């Protein structure tokens, strides 16, 4: 629980000396509680009080970084239970488990597929994040397979083995890539804790339930292992969602440091649809990492798109630069289509214009990221706004005609817009899907 002003007051010198610029220690304590002033403003605060207050200021869910190169990613550091309260910050890392019992060629083939799982959607690159190698055969095979990973993928790596000695050898082999180790449990706590510390590696902590995990993180923390990721094992979906929710609540609502870490969820379903549904459930419900096996592009795209949706900042819908975009080999007689600067609107129109193969201009109006109808209702996509955009974007200097295509949904502004802009308004289709046919008939 966050410290109240009164709790903080008890830690201050209570001399009311005014050095901090406030009349009393209590007043200063209130400012600290609001995080409006730094503790350094009071020169007389004890070291012990400072420690308590600094610990208090740490994020409730520890940020952990996986990987070392341009593919490294942060997880944790979340602050809310529901995305509408602010936003979800660090998109769930999506990773793939590869068994070392596969042949070298099979492993390489899989890695090549994984490396290619990248998609561009509404102006963002959607990519997978992690490759986890799982030991099924003997230790020597695990090390061979680890060497293949090292060579054939640049993604962050994870090592899954029940044998601490083998895990250690593999960790040394991959140490420059800072692999995530899986996993510390009651039996191997000491050796894995030491290994993680020695090589400064992040470590997964496994237990069957929240209590066990919490106990283990406290012990590891006491030994100085700080970068932890929690795992409560494979269990039925409803139980897993309960664990994930409870851990998030413990961290945020009770500031329970022993559970204030990102959580890993392993999906164990052979059917790709079932695997995707479960992965999606964990992405929506707080998982920091989701591990799957399926490599089909359609499965990955649907999971990554869900992640993109859930992790979009609700206060800041994805936007693009409001300006005039030339699509294809345009000339001064190419048609001009107007839409909003909401990414989804723009990219949907763009996709259809491209597939129509008719060169055209798209004028993106600054609607602060609102979609066509929302922006129209908010008067950000009306005759005034579009007229202004026509001027500012230089349409008049770029094209040699005065025709403008507007979305079918805002047909009602045609008259006003024609009067104000001096352009001849052509009402386009309601759905972007109608654009190819529409554009072809325009000529």
């Amino acid at each position, binding site marked *: 629980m966050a410290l109240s002003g009164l709790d903080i007051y008890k830690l201050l010198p209570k001399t009311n000396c005014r050095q901090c610029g406030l009349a009393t220690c209590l007043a200063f304590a209130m400012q600290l509680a609001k995080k409006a002033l730094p503790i350094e403003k009071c020169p007389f605060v004890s070291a012990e009080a400072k420690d308590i207050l600094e610990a208090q200021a740490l994020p409730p869910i520890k940020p952990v970084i996986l990987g070392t190169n341009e593919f490294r990613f942060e997880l944790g550091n979340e602050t809310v239970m529901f995305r509408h309260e602010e936003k979800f910050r660090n998109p769930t890392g999506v990773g793939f488990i590869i068994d070392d019992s596969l042949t070298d060629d099979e492993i390489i083939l899989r890695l090549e597929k994984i490396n290619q799982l990248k998609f561009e959607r509404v102006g963002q690159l959607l990519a997978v994040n992690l490759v986890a190698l799982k030991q099924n055969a003997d230790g020597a095979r695990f090390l061979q397979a680890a060497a293949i990973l090292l060579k054939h993928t640049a993604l962050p790596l994870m090592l899954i083995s029940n044998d601490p000695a083998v895990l250690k050898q593999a960790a040394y082999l991959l140490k420059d890539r800072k692999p995530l180790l899986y996993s510390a449990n009651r039996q191997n706590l000491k050796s894995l804790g030491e290994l993680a510390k020695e090589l400064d590696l992040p470590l997964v902590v496994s237990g069957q339930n929240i209590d066990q995990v919490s106990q283990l993180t406290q012990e590891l923390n006491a030994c100085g292992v700080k970068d932890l990721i929690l795992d409560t094992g494979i269990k039925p979906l409803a139980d897993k969602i309960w664990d994930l929710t409870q851990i998030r609540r413990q961290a945020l609502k009770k500031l329970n440091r022993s559970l204030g870490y990102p959580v890993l969820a392993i999906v164990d379903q052979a059917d790709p*649809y079932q695997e995707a549904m479960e992965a999606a459930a964990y992405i929506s419900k707080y998982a920091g990492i989701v591990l799957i096996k399926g490599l089909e592009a359609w499965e990955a795209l649907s999971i990554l798109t869900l992640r993109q*949706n859930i992790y979009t900042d609700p206060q800041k819908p994805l936007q693009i630069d409001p300006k005039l975009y030339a699509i294809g080999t345009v000339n001064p007689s190419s048609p001009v289509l107007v839409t909003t600067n909401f990414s989804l609107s723009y990219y949907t129109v763009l996709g259809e214009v491209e597939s129509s193969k008719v060169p055209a201009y798209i004028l993106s109006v600054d609607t602060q990221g609102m979609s066509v109808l929302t922006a129209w209702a908010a008067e950000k996509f009306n005759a005034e706004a579009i007229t202004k955009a026509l001027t500012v974007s230089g349409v008049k200097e770029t094209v040699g005609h005065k025709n403008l295509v507007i979305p079918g949904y805002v047909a009602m502004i045609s008259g006003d817009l024609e009067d104000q802009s001096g352009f001849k308004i052509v009402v386009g289709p309601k759905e972007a899907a109608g654009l190819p046919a529409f554009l072809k008939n325009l000529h």
Partner: protein
Amino acid sequence: METQLVLEKWPGSISVVTIGAKTAEGGSRSQTVQIGGQTALPLMFKEGVMPNRPKIAFEIWDIAPVDFEQELMTAYGRAINDPFTWAQVCVDEFKADLICLKMQGTHPDFGDRSPQEAAKFVSKFLNQIKVPLIITGSGDNAKDNLVLPACSEAAKGERCLIGSAVQDNYKTLVASVLADGHSIIAESPIDINIAKQLNILISDMGLSLERIVIDPTIGALGYGLEYAYSIMERARLAALSGDKTLACPFICFVGQEAWRVKEAKADGRQGIAWETLTATSLIQSGADILVMRHPKAAENVLWYTDGLFRGQ
């Protein structure tokens, strides 16, 4: 040391809506379907009761569908050309809890069937198909105001769910639904305040809140899904905190949204995944009825809800 769990207790609950009436209740359905009744947030089984699992309604048209993706046409085969056969396949083979009958053929651009013809169609449909029924208009407000009252009357006593009422067009439908003993779908444009306002307007006409199902207007995966997702979470939080005007179950028209998008059209399996994940994600934020199109996607969602509700 044992962790002290953070448990949430809510004063409010979601109302229970029953769809369908058996013979003893004045209808002719083989079964009834109940939705709602939750006393905790979605899937938080340890914090309250979830007496009814989310239900799947198969979307059927009163005419052969015009612009369905090939993937959908193939999934149903020839059955899709006849609404009665199409619906029967959904019931017999795909275990439909409900059928959502869309009166598309009454739309001025899709055949412009008269209200009388629509009423006759509904009567025949009720005779042949015995699961509880959802009836929706073609989306043409003026025409729906003529068609839906006729359908409502033809289905009198069958306790259907009929929609949709919207903020500036609800009175005609509410009056019919009230007179014929049905429940209503209240549609709001991804806006929690309008949802609330519309529910109040409807209940002010005498149709109780317990006979309203909210359509929050959803977007497909990748196309605004997150807006509806959050609106539904917010509405549930408000309802469980005691706001009765938002304590209605949700209906989500998943199939029509999912199959419109580029990604679904690009590849059959991707389309199925698209419809599937749109549905399961909305279940996590509180969906009670999922109106779906592809039988494989429906089968996936059934697997998902069976797993979640097993042992509850």
